[in-house]
């Protein structure tokens, strides 16, 4: 196995504030990798750097041997990194199906003139995009809601639609930012099965941020723990669970009651 994603000493500073420092990780192809940590630990900042939303202040990101540090989000997407958002960001006025098709936009092999004149190439492209999107919707279990506007979806379904849309970009690495936030137990079980299927059936490497320890521990093969922008531990779930630094980060040294639920 070789590393799909490697980061070296990644750092992000906003003015004087250091959100993430010396972030190193190495994710193998086909791995289910978890990133956890208390609120404000810098997890989402890592995602933002990996997907080009932020330019890292320092360090290097290497995707399958080629550096992607500082590339624009669309370029990184074209290289096979996709994501979902902690605060769901759907295209509300588009239909569920169209949301997924929009995710496949970058792979459309037509130009504007094809679309304006509706050439044969355009029709074939449109058809295949639609089919592909339908398949993805069936995969995540939203096939029967394809025609609804995205804004009409229930919360849990919105999370799933975001996953389907991210899959439509044909990623090699899928970054999921708290996909289980706000879900009930049954929905979480379903979600965790879905994540596993994405890895097993589609062969997509997954990087997961999640606050629900049960979900992360049950799903991920390796977990990296962040606190105050620093990596405090990395290893298999069992190792992480009994690591002193991790327990301290979550429960505080002698201080109890620190919440570990999702923030909004």
């Amino acid at each position, binding site marked *: 196995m070789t590393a799909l994603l490697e980061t070296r000493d990644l750092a992000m500073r906003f003015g004087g504030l250091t959100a993430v420092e010396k972030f190193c990780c190495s994710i193998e192809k086909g791995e289910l990798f978890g990133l956890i940590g208390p609120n404000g630990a810098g997890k989402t900042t890592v995602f933002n750097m990996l997907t080009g939303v932020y330019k890292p202040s320092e360090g290097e990101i290497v995707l399958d041997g080629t550096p992607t540090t500082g590339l624009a*989000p*669309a370029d990184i997407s074209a290289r096979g990194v996709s994501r979902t958002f902690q605060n769901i*960001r759907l*295209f509300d006025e588009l*239909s569920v199906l*169209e949301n997924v098709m*929009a995710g496949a*936009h*970058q792979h459309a092999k037509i130009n504007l003139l094809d679309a304006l004149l*509706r050439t044969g190439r355009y029709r074939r492209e449109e058809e295949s995009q639609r089919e592909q999107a339908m398949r993805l919707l069936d995969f995540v279990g939203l096939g029967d809601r394809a025609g609804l506007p995205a804004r009409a979806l229930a919360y849990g379904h919105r999370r799933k639609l975001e996953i389907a849309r991210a899959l439509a970009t044909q990623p090699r690495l899928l970054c999921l930012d708290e996909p289980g936030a706000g879900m009930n137990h049954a929905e979480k079980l379903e979600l965790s099965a879905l994540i596993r299927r994405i890895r097993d059936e589609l062969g997509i490497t997954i990087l997961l941020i999640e606050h629900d320890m049960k979900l992360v521990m049950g799903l991920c093969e390796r977990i990296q723990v962040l606190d105050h922008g620093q990596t405090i531990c990395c290893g298999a779930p069992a190792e992480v669970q009994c690591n002193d630094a991790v327990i301290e980060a979550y429960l505080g040294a002698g201080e109890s009651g620190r919440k570990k639920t999702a923030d909004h």
Partner: protein
Amino acid sequence: MLRTLGILALICAAAFGLHLVLDSIDAYWARIANLCGISILLAVSLNVINGLCGQFSLGHAGFMAIGAYVSAFFTTTLRYFDDAAGQYVTVLPLLDQSWGFVPALLLGGFAAAAAGLVIGIPTLRLRGDYLAIATLGFGEIVTIMITNFSKVGGANGLSGIPAYSNGFWIFTFAGICVLFTLHLQRSTFGRALIAIRENELAAEVMGIRTARIKIAAFVYGAFFAGIAGGLLGHFLQTISPATFGFMKSIEVIVMLVLGGLGSLTGAIIGAVTLTVLPELLRDVETSTGMPGIRMVVYSLVLILLMLFRPQGIFGQRELSLRLLRSLLPGRRKEGAPSAPAAFTAQQSVEAKTFFARAPQTLPPQNEGKK
């Protein structure tokens, strides 16, 4: 492709038929109808920028002005008065004919499109109201530049433009614009445009080249605005920088807002309504001797719309048979299992939102801090 060409031929034929009709009816109404056609071009083209892509532009009149002046420059200055023949003779024989002004018109469109490119690139970094102000500035700069350009008449304007515009050309171009925009809207590019409007960051992360698409929207909208300007110039026969001032841009925006920003059919209906209505009000103005009443009504419509139905008549939906049908009382019951599941679901949602949509508003340009 063939079907598209067929539709284009149909549009030409229909425009020609309309042209004949307009030729035979009262000149006053024919004039209003032609102005409607030009308004449709303007509203539909601006809808691509403001409605679909969500980039609030206040400079549409600037693109119009460029199209109008460039095309009029070619048809007026490339000819001279031949004393022997007692009429104007053009330098290029092509421009003699009515159809010969199409190249001039297209040139105007391309010039406007080029301006769209020029203004599109730098304003990419701006969002929401900042973009609105920058495009407003662009529009003002265009008119000020024309005012200082004596070759085209400066502040006095350019007169004696040949009356080449007629019902046929106006409605042919309006038809083409509507057809292309419909095709655009329903294609992968249309989805990309709307994706940018709905959530630009997510669009970018999903691999949509937002910069490229936004510029394309500006270029596309500017092109047809330029065509509309050229048609207007050759219709009014006199243009001046004041014709294309800030208020002109506002008029087009009111058309969009009335119909529902983001809706193609809404744009068309808004354009027609707000071309006919002010013309009728113009009569009121002259009969009461109160200039300004027309714009008073115009602005009141805009304000009341924003207060009571901010999504416009159609919201972002299209007026279609399906929507009309879904509005019929009998058909609104859910679960009529005649159509495939997806369709009925969509119908009932459309019907519901049409009636019970909370005063949710225009596409949020920019999430405010509060």
